[in-house]
């Protein structure tokens, strides 16, 4: 019993230690580069919690991170590594922006329609690697990476075509917007929008699917052991496709946050948004659980937004936060060695007693 509890402790300690190590190494990097780490982290803190405006913006930043994290985590629970969240998010962004712009409908239909369009677009983008994995055993990692680039180029081309050679679609109609005067006023006119509630609702949806439905049980079961699931009469192929589709839908909704909330439109992209890749960090830190994803998204979303304050307040390039996030991923991924360290530590303590 004691042993089980301490194992649970270790499971929580690994991400915590990783974050601390990441921040420490970040401080060392700042020191070596001739910056003041204390000023840096103070600027970061102020950039996250400084006043109600930045708090609003931080929460706004967290919303797509939650959805990207859910997307990665959901696929992971079925044993699939969805690196394609980035691409699924981009097609979702485009679909929501297009539906939001092109139609004129009452809000009660228009907004849900735009959200659904984003989810469907993301789901379709996840469907292709899902089918290829299920039917032809093609590794989903490579296919989803390739799908990211296809999404980027296709969406850029679509924006150009639809806008008649421009680099931006028209703004979404107010009837499809997630923007909220109430939330905005509450936070000193930040761009905080209703998206955070959509994101939190999806956390509940993921929890419900995984824990309360038969399909969720099957999905997890396939993730644990494909062969045993097959033997128990589950269709592994069906579950793989379904996991990718639902994962893609979460990612697509992440894009809708940007399309209908933050930016209210879509512009040509020179490169990736990075949200999808950060989603991998979020899911990893959150141990692929719905609740964990909220924590991971809160941490990385806050860091990412707070970093914007670092160049002005401390003269430190914002990339320091990307360095820290990448390091945290390294440390969490290398959890095996941290685990060994912790177990040794525990043994030593016992012997000392």
């Amino acid at each position, binding site marked *: 019993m004691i042993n089980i509890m301490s194992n649970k402790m270790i499971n929580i300690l690994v991400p915590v230690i990783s974050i601390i190590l990441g921040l420490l190494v970040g401080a060392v*990097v700042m020191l070596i*580069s*001739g910056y003041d780490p204390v000023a840096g982290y103070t600027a970061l803190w102020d950039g996250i919690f400084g006043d109600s405006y930045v708090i609003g913006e931080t929460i706004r930043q967290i919303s797509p991170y939650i959805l990207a994290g859910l997307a990665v985590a959901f696929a992971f629970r079925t044993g699939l*590594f969805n*690196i394609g969240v980035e691409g699924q998010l981009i097609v979702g962004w485009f679909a929501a922006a297009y539906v939001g712009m092109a139609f004129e409908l009452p809000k009660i239909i228009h907004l849900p329609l735009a959200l659904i369009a984003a989810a469907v677009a993301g789901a379709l983008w996840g469907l*292709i690697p899902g089918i*290829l994995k299920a039917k*032809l055993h*093609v*590794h989903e*990692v*490579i*296919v989803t*990476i*390739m*799908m990211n*680039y*296809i999404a980027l*180029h*296709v969406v*850029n*081309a679509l924006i150009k075509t639809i806008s008649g050679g421009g680099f931006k679609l028209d703004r979404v109609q107010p009837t499809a917007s997630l923007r909220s005067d109430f939330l905005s006023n509450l936070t000193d006119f930040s761009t905080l929008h209703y998206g955070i509630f959509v994101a939190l609702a999806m956390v509940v949806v993921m929890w419900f699917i995984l824990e309360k439905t038969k399909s969720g049980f099957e999905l997890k079961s396939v993730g644990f052991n494909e062969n045993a699931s097959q033997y128990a009469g589950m269709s592994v192929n069906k579950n793989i496709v379904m996991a990718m589709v639902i994962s893609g839908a979460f990612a697509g909704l992440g894009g809708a946050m940007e399309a209908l909330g933050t930016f209210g439109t879509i512009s040509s992209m*020179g*490169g990736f948004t990075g949200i999808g*890749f950060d989603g*991998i960090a979020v899911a*990893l830190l959150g141990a692929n659980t719905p609740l964990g994803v909220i924590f991971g998204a809160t941490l990385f979303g806050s860091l990412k937004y707070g970093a914007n304050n670092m160049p002005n307040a401390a003269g430190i*390039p914002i*990339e*320091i936060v*990307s*360095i820290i*996030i*990448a*390091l945290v*991923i*390294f440390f969490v*991924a*290398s*959890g*095996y*060695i941290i685990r060994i360290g912790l177990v040794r530590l525990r043994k030593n303590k016992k012997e000392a007693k």
Partner: protein
Amino acid sequence: MLDILYFIIPITIASAAPLIFTAIGGVFSERSGVINIGLEGLMIMGAFTGILFNLFFADVLGAWTPWVSLLVAMFVSALFATLHAVASISFRADQVVSGVAINMLGLAIALFSVKMIFGKGQTDFIQQKIPRFNIPFLEDIPIIGPMFFKLVYGSSIIAIAVAFIAWFVIYKTPFGLRLRSVGEHPMAADTMGIKVTKIRYIAVIISGGLAGIGGAVYSQTITNDFGHATINGQGFMALAAMIFGKWHPIGAMGAALFFGFAQALAISSSSIKFLADIPAVYFHIFPYVLTILALAGFLGKANAPKAIGKPYVKGNR
């Protein structure tokens, strides 16, 4: 028709050279059983170091600058790849996750340093670029001479040579045999006395070095400076070339040349009469679609090394 080829083929070779280096780096790593999604980040490090060294030492080294820069980029990226090796081989981290972290870290470190050193988002332009050569005798061949062998970047010649050297190393030397066996069946290799961990470390470090050269070639022939979008997917395209080339050095070189051709078409399609009507997006997504088709088995079966992605734990069955 010939005019078009005179125009496109040099662009093809120039765009393909960085992909060839990087893809062959990928072949080394993956043949030893370690997935290397981090090629993009390793290329970024190479591109950045190459430009940085070139800018600072151009006065001292003169015409030798770009070549020494390539070497420095190779060393820095090889060192950077050690991080991937330690995490994925010794610490048994998920190789894909570790690769993703390498990509993020590479870009972040490079941009952080650029802003720190130059105080802006991109570096200055380099003055000492990689020189172009006419290849003696071959350039005199009618038609194909001027197409392939006139004003070729020195780095492109090296790239082709590296592909053949890599083929020789992987298929004709004891080290190559060990490399392949470690990637197919590490336990059997271990039983035969091959040090699995050591071989994998070497392979990952080689892949870092080659990707570093690839990045530095790209930045010193095509962009001539370094900024956030200098390397924008070339690493992943090299990964695609490696798969499309079926994890074989010569195949990877062929695929890289083919993808270089697609890039050249994308750049120049608007100025070619019968291609002008085709939107450039088709040329842009072409390499990625092809790779998916290749993996799906529509273009002949591409089989990854058997033990790929799995950490080797001594004594486990």
